[in-house]
């Protein structure tokens, strides 16, 4: 497949402070003791997409990510790591790496996705319709992305806010309208011209944009060049393309001269022909009908791929999401983790040491070389490698990263303890985050706090 994949791995995300730091960029945050980026890479590899560009914000972060990738998967995948300046936005990042893009179509995947939706299906849909852009939509979790497990009561009272509002045609193939629910103040305004062309539009607020897009490269580059003000793919480029689909400014026709220049012209041409045959085989879309009614008018297609509701999809873009995804990957969605589970539905590394009368419940993970003292109880939590945990410790619904030290008699609920952090004796934490290397003094009782060095 002539697809190039761009993974937007971000850098230092302010939503995730204090979990991320200079040492741990967002892409390397552990989910069940594996960097989140590895889930994306595995997903792409399983779909036979092996030509990847990982875009990271900031040089330092890029080095870190690059180092991890070269160690982990250099033999399996062809990965380039590109560093771009911080805060350029997703569109800016693509602009910066434009010279790397050569394939006919580009698949853009956010680097913080933990999912089992096949990106290959998006690519196939994209090709079949010969679309300018194809967006993957997935079912919105019933009430906010944090509810999948049901144990965190925080967001339950919140009204389900509509994340994205999308308009689809009656066959659910084309994207006619997209808006962010939060940006709509009072009314949703749908342009009549597109409604007239399509006849029917189904506005859905129960679908959300999954940040996996397939773009035609020529279209993407043209838009990026023409509109230097565009910063974000989701908020600028995509709505622009959707809005202008009936009077295209972009040359959606193949620029064949350029393609031939790539040196693999035979294969290229075959594919062009193939995609044209495929797109002609289906019923004429309203775009074609519209085009035929008016001369001198060009259109481009914006398509959607709607993932099956049973598929798992989470974006790691908040602390809550981090907790949820850790819990789900060793719980409900354990097929994603790649580990084999014991009869007790948990994973305890053979080198981990457990004290007497210590229980590790189902949906738990205990990393390599970690030690747990006597009479401890671990429930629905992930504990990293080489952690040292004292006696009489309770850990529930929490994530403890590598090399953390937890003193005797601590009680930890719904919290994140980053690597190298230390909890002294009898600390009680509830819904707290402890920054890497931070030391929490003995005997404290904390609720909903963030521990970080100022």
């Amino acid at each position, binding site marked *: 497949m002539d697809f190039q994949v761009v993974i937007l791995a971000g850098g230092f995300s302010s939503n995730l402070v204090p979990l991320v730091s200079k040492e741990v960029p967002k892409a390397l945050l552990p989910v069940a003791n594996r960097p989140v980026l590895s889930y994306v890479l595995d997903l792409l590899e399983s779909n036979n997409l092996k030509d990847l560009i990982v875009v990271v914000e900031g040089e330092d972060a890029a080095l870190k990510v690059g180092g991890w990738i070269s160690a982990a998967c250099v033999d399996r995948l062809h990965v380039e790591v590109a560093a771009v300046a911080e805060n350029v936005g997703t569109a800016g990042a693509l602009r910066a790496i434009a010279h790397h893009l050569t394939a006919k179509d580009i698949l853009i995947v956010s680097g913080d996705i933990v999912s089992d939706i096949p990106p290959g299906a998006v690519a196939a849909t994209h090709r079949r319709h010969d679309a300018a852009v194809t967006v993957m939509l997935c079912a919105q979790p019933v009430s906010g992305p944090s509810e999948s497990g049901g144990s965190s009561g925080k967001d339950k009272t919140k009204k389900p806010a509509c994340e994205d509002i999308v308009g689809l045609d009656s066959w659910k193939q084309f994207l006619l309208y997209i808006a962010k629910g939060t940006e709509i103040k009072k009314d949703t305004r749908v342009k*009549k011209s597109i409604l007239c062309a399509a006849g029917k539009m189904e506005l859905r607020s129960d679908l959300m944009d999954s940040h996996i897009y397939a773009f035609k490269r020529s279209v993407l580059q043209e838009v990026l060049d023409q509109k230097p003000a565009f910063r974000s793919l989701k908020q600028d480029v995509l709505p622009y393309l959707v809005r202008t689909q009936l009077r295209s400014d972009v040359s959606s026709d193949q620029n064949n001269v350029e393609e031939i220049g790539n040196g693999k012209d035979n294969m290229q041409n075959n594919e062009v022909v193939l995609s044209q045959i495929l797109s002609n085989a289906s019923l004429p879309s309203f775009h074609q009908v519209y085009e035929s009614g008016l001369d001198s008018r060009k259109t481009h297609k914006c398509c959607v791929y709607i993932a099956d509701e049973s598929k798992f999809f989470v974006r790691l873009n908040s602390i809550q999401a981090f907790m949820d995804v850790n819990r789900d990957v060793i719980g409900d969605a354990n097929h994603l983790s790649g580990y084999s589970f014991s009869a007790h539905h948990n994973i305890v590394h053979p080198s981990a040491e457990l004290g007497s009368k210590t229980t590790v419940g189902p949906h738990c993970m205990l990393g390599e070389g970690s030690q747990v003292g006597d009479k401890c109880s671990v429930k629905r939590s992930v504990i990293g490698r080489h952690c040292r945990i004292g006696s009489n410790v309770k850990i529930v619904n929490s994530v403890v990263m590598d090399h953390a030290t937890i003193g005797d008699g601590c009680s930890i609920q719904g919290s994140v303890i980053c690597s190298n952090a230390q909890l002294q004796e009898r600390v009680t934490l509830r819904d707290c985050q402890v920054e890497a290397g931070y030391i929490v003094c003995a005997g404290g009782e904390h609720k909903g706090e963030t521990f970080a060095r100022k």
Partner: protein
Amino acid sequence: MGAQKKGGGGARVSEDAEEQSHQRLQAILLADSFATKFRPVTLERPKVLLPIVNVPMIDYTLAWLEYAGIEEVFVFCCAHSIQIIEYLEKSEWYSHPNLVVRTIESHKSISAGDALRYMYEQQTETSQIQGDFVLVSGDTVSNMPLADLIQEHRERKKKDEKAIMTMVIKQSKSSSLTHQSRLGTDQLFIAVDPLTKQLLHYEEDKIDHPRGSVCLDKSLLESNPSVLVCNDMQDCYIDICSPEVLSLFEDNFDYQHLRRHFVKGVLVDDIMGYKIFTHEIHSSYAARIDNFRSYDTVSKDIIQRWTFPYVPDINFSGNRPLKLGRQGIYRACDVIQSRSADVGASSVIGYGTKIGDGDKILNSVIGNGCSIGSNVVIEGSYIWNNVTIEDGCEIRNAIVSDGVKIRAGAVLQPGVVLSFNVVVGRDFVVPAYSKVSLLQQPTTEDSDEELEYADSSSRTADHLSGLNLQMESKASELGPDGAGYIWEVCEGAHDEEWKHSVAPIPEDKLAEITQAIDDDDTDDESVVPTSGELKSDADSINTDMNDPNDDYYDFEKEVEGTVLRAVEENIKVDLVTLEINGLRLSYNMESADCAGATFYSMMKLAVDTPHNSASELYKNAASIITKWKELLGFYVKKIDEQIEVIMKFEEMCQESPKELGPLFTQILHLLYDKDVLQEDAILRWAEEKAGADEADKVYLKQCETFIQWLKEASEEEDEDDEDEEEDD
């Protein structure tokens, strides 16, 4: 007010619930379109009696209702009610075994809303309507079954008390250009919940202006995960209604139009929470003849048998069936047709009609008793009964009413409508889209409502007899030997002509529509949003800026009218406030807006009262303010509202600097003295204004001394307070 009434109504309905299962199926048929789209023809004959494929429209509707299992029909007659009742008496409908036809006559009703209110009033006396009923107008052609739909409606109603209406919709032809223009109606945008089929949004728009966007309230999407917005549906104007619909019309006395007012009102009103559902029909036919274009379309559908069994070769209402030949040519058995005449596909020729040598007839309907000379060309036209067409005429896409004479060599260009008994002179060319009648165009048209009813039948008859005499002496507008007036197209309606006429849409208009879409898109291009900003927001800002202003302007006008009337007729203050409050609610205004508008109209009144000098004007203003300060006081209870009044006043002064300008301080002082304004408001206004441009400060400067005085006074007061405190 309405809520209490509704409570009573609801209780009664639930009592009736048990009876509903064996209650008879009823329908209300509005035998008046409450519109003028079929003028001038409808000046002489009611629309429902106009023939469509040689059978009066109302017969199609009644035959369908009978077939669909309706047992009792109330025919509501307004315009030309005598003609309708006479017709029904003569027809077999009055003695029909399965269908009871009752007529209701009302000459006061000028809209569908009035008609239903009238029904409601009758209802309280006679309680004729026992439960759910079908509401149709007398120009509906359909063959859809109703029993299941009524059942569906009843079951839904049982589950959900608020589901008061089910509306029938049908998918229209799927071409983006001709969706709605096929029936000549406006573009329709509706939003439906795809699961429950509940109607969420209803919006009509002119076909040639597909610009702008459809606005759906955000809450709509929050409460429904999926909303289907359709543009390819047509409204069949067939409604299954629960009795609450009648009482809703009674409660909302300003509901006139079934769709524009009632449906929108129900959708917007979330207090009562009434719901409307839609029912989409797929295989059966339903359409309403709203204008000449839909007349043309529906005629063709009938000829092409989409409306089976209501087709010309079947007797469904006492009509004499015609014989169906090849190529969809229907012919009466006694037609005298010359051998050299060529009758083409999809044509209908009625009884006793003579067709001369060398005639060419294509896609046309010719009524009974017509006589057509030789070498006549008739294409896509509708010739009613007893029409005489002499040799060599050419008729294209025209409607020719009963008794018309077209003299030799005359030409009717596309879109012409000839009303009853018009005579077109020899070799005269009737220009495209003209409407010709023996009656003169009413010059003083009722501006507010488009009424078929405006000329009652009796008056028309008198008019006619007198007119005929007149005509003979006067040279006709239709050639020397013709008779009839060519109606002028009234302003604004000009654009509509091509849209509503029987003639096909001309090429250039199609191009125009396309152009309009183009323009629309280019408009939008110029507003390319900057980063992070969605187009929809930019749009909303624009319109938000415009709409409230327009609204406010209208509101101000209304308030002005109210106050003027109050002053003239010396109405009590309570009543005036009641009325203004009503306006405030209907325009969705703030109480501060009321204050501004009321004050504005009072000052305007003062200025409009004749005066010679500034002091006289001041006297005028003072007397009005003194007299109506209670009214004003009602709205200026808060400081903000008082400031609004001052701002308004300032604005007025700026508009007429000569008249009111010099009096600014004086009147301000007066308002202060009369306790309309408090000093806090005036001081706050002065503070706010202090930062304004120099040009804006003219009036601030004018009243500087007054403000200074106020300030000192208030300081003194403060001191007094302090003193008092000290005393304590």
